């Protein structure tokens, strides 16, 4: 029992106090709360939390005032699918790589974090790659640029794991295209088909169940006072047991309707839930089944045709699934796309006619729900973390840009500051390059090389 909490303990590293102490008031703004409509007024932040929102608020003495006249305030954007800030994404050698996790490779100095901030993103789900039917564990991070690894993790976020279906996990089943090494078969890996992908998942959970049974038996008998040798701990099965126990969320990369349905049925059979289907470009074809299972959908706004399984992708996917009752978010899977998820959300107005609130929910409260962090972030509500973005125009306009970003009430991005520091940074950079230039090479004396 204790063994199984080993993986979780990694996330319980002591966290420095992140929140900005004191009071900040953002005034005169159009506040897009997402869950409680749009308000013209102020947001009051105390010790990193939102303590008041409204047209008329009490401004405590000594509060730091930020005038956002004519500007738009919204909750920090949440990206449910990202690979930034990781040194490694895919452990591609095994079809089940659940013993690995992106949490072990988080790089808090990745410039991708700052760039994401500058696009209004405050939280992201850092997923393992899609090379395996069952991939590695993921971590949720906040873009606390300048902080160290344990401090950028989203404290209290439920752990998760990546699954992957379709072309990616079966890719290694065939000889790589144009592979010139002449040893392609040695690179082959089961599975090569969608039925093989199903088999890998079914096999892993069959074994995980047996493993769980051994531990359950051991725990039950030791509880009664028996002295036994504990079963061998297996880090491959620990996360899968957590999935079976509902302690770990499954985020499954998928494209085609058939493979989506397959995974839902396998999960039903083993008694666990798929928390989110990632990409899920044909989710619109099986929206009914998604809703019945309770699976969320985290998709692209308009990507299609980049591979065969993306050929039936439609930009109406998000809107259609939403209209059929599925919890939908828009993700990036890209360090670039991540920087303008607000514009991606705007496309749901064009493709499917969603309302502004519905569109914005897809990059805020909906991904928060999909990551089980909606009690903390995803909307501007009293009691939530003060993760806030200020845009100069309505965030669903393509002409809007991010002005300021707060996480836990602390300002982590300020466009004015970024702009004003550019010249100084440029000259510092040039100076550093100058210093690194080697002095004129010494002439070798007497034709002899230095030894």
């Amino acid at each position, binding site marked *: 029992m204790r063994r199984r909490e080993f993986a979780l303990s990694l996330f319980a590293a002591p966290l420095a106090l992140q929140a900005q102490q004191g009071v900040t008031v953002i005034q005169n703004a159009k506040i897009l709360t997402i869950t409680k409509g749009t308000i013209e007024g102020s947001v009051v932040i105390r010790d990193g939390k939102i303590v008041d929102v409204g047209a008329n608020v009490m401004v405590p003495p000594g509060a730091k005032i930020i005038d956002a006249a004519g500007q738009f305030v919204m909750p920090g954007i949440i990206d449910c699918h990202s690979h930034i800030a990781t040194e490694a994404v895919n452990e591609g050698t095994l079809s089940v790589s659940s013993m690995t996790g992106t949490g072990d490779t988080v790089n808090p100095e990745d410039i991708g974090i700052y760039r994401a901030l500058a696009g209004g993103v405050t939280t992201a789900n850092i997923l393992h790659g899609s090379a395996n039917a069952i991939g590695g564990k993921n971590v949720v991070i906040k873009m606390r640029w300048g902080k160290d690894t344990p401090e950028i993790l989203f404290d209290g976020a439920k752990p998760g794991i990546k699954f992957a279906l379709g072309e990616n996990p079966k890719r290694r089943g065939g000889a790589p295209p144009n592979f010139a090494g002449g040893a392609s078969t040695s690179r082959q890996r089961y599975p090569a088909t969608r039925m093989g992908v199903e088999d890998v998942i079914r096999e892993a959970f069959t074994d995980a169940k047996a493993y769980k049974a051994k531990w359950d038996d051991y725990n039950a008998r030791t509880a009664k006072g028996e002295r036994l040798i504990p079963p061998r701990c297996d880090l491959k099965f620990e996360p899968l047991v957590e999935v079976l126990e509902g302690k770990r969320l499954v985020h499954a990369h998928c494209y085609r309707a058939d493979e989506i349905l397959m995974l839902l049925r396998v999960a039903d059979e083993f008694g666990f839930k798929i928390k989110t289907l990632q990409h899920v470009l044909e989710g619109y074809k099986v929206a009914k089944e998604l809703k019945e299972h309770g699976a969320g959908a985290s998709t692209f706004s308009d990507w299609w045709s980049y591979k065969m399984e993306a050929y*039936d992708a439609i930009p109406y996917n998000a809107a259609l699934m939403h209209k059929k009752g599925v919890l939908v978010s828009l993700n990036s899977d890209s360090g670039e796309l991540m920087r303008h998820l607000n514009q991606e959300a705007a496309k749901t107005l064009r493709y499917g006619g969603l309302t502004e609130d519905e569109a914005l929910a897809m990059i805020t409260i909906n991904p928060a729900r999909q990551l089980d962090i909606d009690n903390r972030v995803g909307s501007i509500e009293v009691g939530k973390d003060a993760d806030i973005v200020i845009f100069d125009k309505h965030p669903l306009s393509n002409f809007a840009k991010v002005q300021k970003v707060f996480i836990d009430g602390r300002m982590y991005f300020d466009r004015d500051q970024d702009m004003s520091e550019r010249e100084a940074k440029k000259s510092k950079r040039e100076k550093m390059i100058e210093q690194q230039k080697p002095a004129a090479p010494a002439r070798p004396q007497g034709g002899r090389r230095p030894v």
Partner: protein
Amino acid sequence: MKRLAALFGAALIAADDSFILRNVTIHPVTAPAIPAATIVVTNGKIVDFGAKIALPKNAKAIDGKGLHLYPGLIDSASNVGMSEVSSVRETSDTIELGDFNPQLRAVSSINPSSDHIPVTRGNGITTSVMYPGGGIIGGQVALMHLDGWTWEEMAIEKNLAMQMRFPSIATSTFSRSFGSGRTPYAESKRRYEERVKLTSDFFEEVRAYKQRKAAGGANFQPERRLEAMLPVVDGKQPLMVFATRECAAREAMAFAAKEKVKIILAGLRDSGPVLKEIADKRIPVILGETLDLPLEEDSAYDEAYALPAELHKAGVTFAFGTFSVQFARNLPFQAAAGVAFGLPHDEALKAITINAAKIWGVDDRIGSIEKGKWADLILTDGDPLEGRSQVKQMWVQGKPVSLETRHTKLYEQYMKRQ
């Protein structure tokens, strides 16, 4: 909208395709917007437009109340129709083998039945510059309407420009067969110099061929590959030179000066002093994706976003190209992204309409709403640069074009599923 649809239906079956569109805000692009205006289209051309104009008798009338009329958008670099599923080689006809292929024509690689054509049209793009690729000289660039039963009907100019990718020093490489890798700088530089020499030699070969041809005689043998280059060396056809970095752009300009050829720079990503040189030499630029990552880790986060504004400030004439298949429909958003970071809105719109037409030398026919130009028009419910706007109707040379796509059909089909 139903009434509008019925009228378009009528327009489709009428033998005479003349029509009047009234009560619409007309954005000519080359002049300020005219609210509550009327436009008259006859035989595929714009006859007249304005707030108060004389109307022909018996022409079909369409009411565009609350809607906006713009010229069809132009994508200045596209592969739409040349590739269907990018990861499936069998469906892709964009990159040929070999270093010098001026005889190749993009026009004959375009599949008029591609699902990408209506999808791209759906966002207001009526016209695209299609380019071939591969090696140093990829082949002939074509200007195509995104409408037509055959590539021949789609083609506006089959031989618009010659595609060229200037050699560059690439130390990091990526190929699907071998994955990512790095080449040592010295090796990369040696290869680069070799390829620059190959390029110079090829142009020399073309000039020698030109002389042989001029001299005539019984022994003269035409060579298709060299023949295709003659309009380029004669300065009649521009080279569309792909150059991303500042050094590549400078070298391309120096090369153009040496060879006395016209060039259009494509895919430029660097800013800085090179922009002044480009402006001074009056070399047009086709900008790639605005929503792109900075080139270097320590570049400003908004480097790519601000590039269109930088070009505008430097006085460079530019247009936008998507250089894409699946994202070609996002051309208007590519232009819009520059507006957030300092590009005037009108300039963004011009860069996907009239300025594109001017750069490619076809502004006598397309790129704006002006008397005598082709009626390549889009009717929208708002600013076409905004994500939320809808394109309600499109005409190509006065003919209504369907906005139904693979995507709208699948949407309708699966909305019905109970």
